[in-house]
């Protein structure tokens, strides 16, 4: 039996293991598609779980306040979708969670340090969510409206938003490693100081060097096995990341927009199909479309806030999606927004490439700029598809508010030769797609724009991949499962979202 101990201890030393950089890069590239798809599938259901409660509670609030059973009926119907989205979101969350610890196993070091407080606190929020989802869904009785029931939904909404904040804290740290002081600026010289220094810089410097030719095994071995000591002194600091504030507001508004307009599309469909129930459906549509419209207008301000953060902390991403190219140049709108000067000359990739000589790792600068240049070739279009979708939704939303003024309604009809009511009904079919395009494009820009870094300026994506080979069979199996969940989950939601007429 002692032999086992020796085998195990020699394995733990990992001295004989060496996985080449090229193998790890190809392994990481093989794992990326299933990971990206998994996160999108998770996000698709989660956005309903975070965004839909706003609409459900709006209906319930109106239902209780006005003693209106039609609103309550709609709230109950939508809360089932909320419940299903929550359950599928939790299931796909498991997939993402295991994807992290099993396929991208180097992230365990981040879970054990930078992400520790956000993820552990999220456990508490998640527990509150589950308890209140059960209470909320199982105590529905629309014939007896109750503020207690509404309040339980409100607690659930707050818990799900706190949960989103904490999960996004981990993601924001990946984009802007807040709390690392000037550490990243030594590697990427254009980076500002990222908050107060809460890390053991010497240990992370050594870790950075160790990672250059090695992947996960070196990461685990160095940081966990070699007892380098505490590397992160203040686990709460990722919660104060300025990128997190912007990302959270931006993400929650996006979820409200998509969920509200998706509900609007289903209501509008039944509005067209069931002529006898149009008043009922238009009443519901005004609330769902209105919720989406308010969020779409707020999104314009949130987008501005987000853009400023990206410019400050992920400038290469900014250059890529603004199409400023190698030599940079003028960008009148951005010039006015950021500097109040339409003639401001933004530097391009060449400027940042020239800063390589100031870096402790010039190769990291070159890799970052090359990745941003490559991202620019498609990221520009993806980014603008997000912006244009957002602008159209903004215009739809402004039009929607004209519904409350007869003069504006008449004016609208004169200009567009369609009644505003009809416009709201028909645009309900376009709006959710625009929301989905904007959200998925925005997330793609956010994530792909920091390539090749998994934690910006510190750890690259291939350095956290499992040393096990990701075979095509494995990828296909996981992708098939992800697609099955997406299809089955979507059908369930479509099935439930069909608003049947309210029967007294």
């Amino acid at each position, binding site marked *: 039996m002692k032999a086992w101990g020796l085998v195990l201890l020699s394995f733990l030393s990992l001295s004989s293991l060496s996985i080449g950089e090229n193998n790890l890069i190809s392994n990481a590239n093989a794992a990326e598609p299933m990971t990206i798809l998994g996160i999108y599938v998770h996000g698709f259901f989660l956005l309903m779980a975070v965004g839909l409660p706003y609409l459900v509670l709006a209906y319930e609030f109106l239902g209780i306040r006005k003693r209106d059973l039609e609103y309550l009926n709609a709230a109950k119907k939508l809360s089932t979708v909320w419940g299903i989205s929550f359950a599928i979101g939790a299931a796909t969350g498991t997939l993402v969670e*295991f994807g992290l610890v099993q396929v991208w196993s180097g992230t365990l070091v981040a879970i054990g340090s930078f992400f520790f407080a956000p993820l552990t606190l999220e456990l508490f929020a998640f*527990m509150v969510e589950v308890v209140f989802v059960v209470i909320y869904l199982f105590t529905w009785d629309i014939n007896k409206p109750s503020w207690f029931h509404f309040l339980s939904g409100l607690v659930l909404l707050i818990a799900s938003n706190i949960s989103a904040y904490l999960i996004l804290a981990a993601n924001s740290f990946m984009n802007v490693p807040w709390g690392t002081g000037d550490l990243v600026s030594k590697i990427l010289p254009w980076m500002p100081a990222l908050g107060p220094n809460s890390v053991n810089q010497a240990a992370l410097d050594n870790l950075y060097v160790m990672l250059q030719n090695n992947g996960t095994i070196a990461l685990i071995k160095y940081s966990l096995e070699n007892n380098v000591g505490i590397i992160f002194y203040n686990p709460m600091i990722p919660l104060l990341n300025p990128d997190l504030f912007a990302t959270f507001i931006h993400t929650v508004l996006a979820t409200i927009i998509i969920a509200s307009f998706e509900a609007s599309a289903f209501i509008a469909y039944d509005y067209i199909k069931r002529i006898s129930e149009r008043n009922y459906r238009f009443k519901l549509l005004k609330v769902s479309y209105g919720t989406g419209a308010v969020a779409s207008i707020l999104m314009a301000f949130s987008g501005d806030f987000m853009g400023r953060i990206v410019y400050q902390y992920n400038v290469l991403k900014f250059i890529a999606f603004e199409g400023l190219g190698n030599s940079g140049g003028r960008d009148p709108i951005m010039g006015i927004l950021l500097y109040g000067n339409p003639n401001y000359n933004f530097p391009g990739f060449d400027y940042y490439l020239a800063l390589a000589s100031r870096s402790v790792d010039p190769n990291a600068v070159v890799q970052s700029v090359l990745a941003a240049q490559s991202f620019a070739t498609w990221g520009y279009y993806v980014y603008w598809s997000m912006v244009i979708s957002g602008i159209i939704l903004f215009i739809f939303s402004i039009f929607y508010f004209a519904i409350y003024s007869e003069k504006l309604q008449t004016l609208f009809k004169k200009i567009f030769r369609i009644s505003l009511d009809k416009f709201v009904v028909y645009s309900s079919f376009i709006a959710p797609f625009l929301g989905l395009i904007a959200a998925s494009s925005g997330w793609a820009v956010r994530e792909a724009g920091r390539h090749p870094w998994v934690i910006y300026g510190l750890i690259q994506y291939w350095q956290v991949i499992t040393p096990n080979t990701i075979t095509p069979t494995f990828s296909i199996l996981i992708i098939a499962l992800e697609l099955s969940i997406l299809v089955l989950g979507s059908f369930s939601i479509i099935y439930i979202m069909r608003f049947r007429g309210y029967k007294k």
Partner: protein
Amino acid sequence: MNNVFNAFILLGYATIAHLFLVNLILGISIIIPILEYIQIKRNDDELKRNQISIFKFMVITDLFAGVWATWLTVFLGGFWPLLTFYATTILFIPITISIAGILIALPSIGIYWYTWGKVSNKLHLFIGIIMCIGTIMVPLGFNMIFAFINDPVGINQLGGNLFAVFLNPLYPTFTLHRIFGAITMVSSLLLGIYGYLYYKTNQERYGSMMYILSYIALPSIFIESFLGFIYAFELTKYSPYIASVLFGPFSLNPAENNLYPLFLIFISIILIMWILLISLIFIHFRGKKSHLISISLAIISLIGIPFGEFINDYSRYPYFIITGDKGIYLSQFINNIINITDFWVISSFIVSIAVLSAYLWLLYQVIIKKRFSH
């Protein structure tokens, strides 16, 4: 308190809470399709009513089990990243089987619920069987972790044959023991509950459930006990440290840690379950009722699994991985790159207990007292 102790306590807490709930889910997932098969054969609507209420209970349990699964994963990754890395790397295949199982089980639970009465009986039963297969796949994979930390077979296969871990001699017995343990727990619990309801209401729908459950519980506890005996014997051979901790004075080598008294209590629990189960079945088949035996059986069936789990986990202390008559200490796997302060332990206990208490209080107010009802 130090990092190792804090992390150990939290991991143990989450593990026991999670496994208690997943055993309920596993048992119900296996029993539900059996009940549905009988229901279709007999065209028995009363049985369907019972089946629906059991299934509802499972859905709520599943939500809570999911929460604890997340706690467990974060605690493993956050406190024991080194061990988690080795486990996810070497046990890549078994863990993938479990994940696939979760991904099959969770949507099929939803589909099973929403297709009730909307598709043909046979198709619905088929969906139930898929749900059952998905649920069984979960312990098939995850039990390898327990088998592995008791006897690390396949440890030197990184980059080699990742299927080598399946040669672990403890794995088959341990896994089957766990699966039959879950069936025993759930069928005995339900037998106790229906026995009590039958006593209180005298409704035949409860009596007939008792009849069906008897045919599940009795063979299951027999198989579970037999496998438990075999597993104990295997431990002496493949994981002698654990055997010595459990068997105390009857072991060949005394261990640093002695759980012999607790192990005796566990054996007593199983024996009491046997006695209560046989008694209840016996009096039921003779046309009599007993609320005392029914309640006792329901309670004891709930105690068995967490108690056994506690012994199973604590028997490795102070090691994490057992290598014969010794092991690798917990401290070798602990996360040293952050401080695991008492704050995390205290807040975890307070939050989980406060939230669950609030939940139970609200349920009591809503269901029993009919307060806050609309």
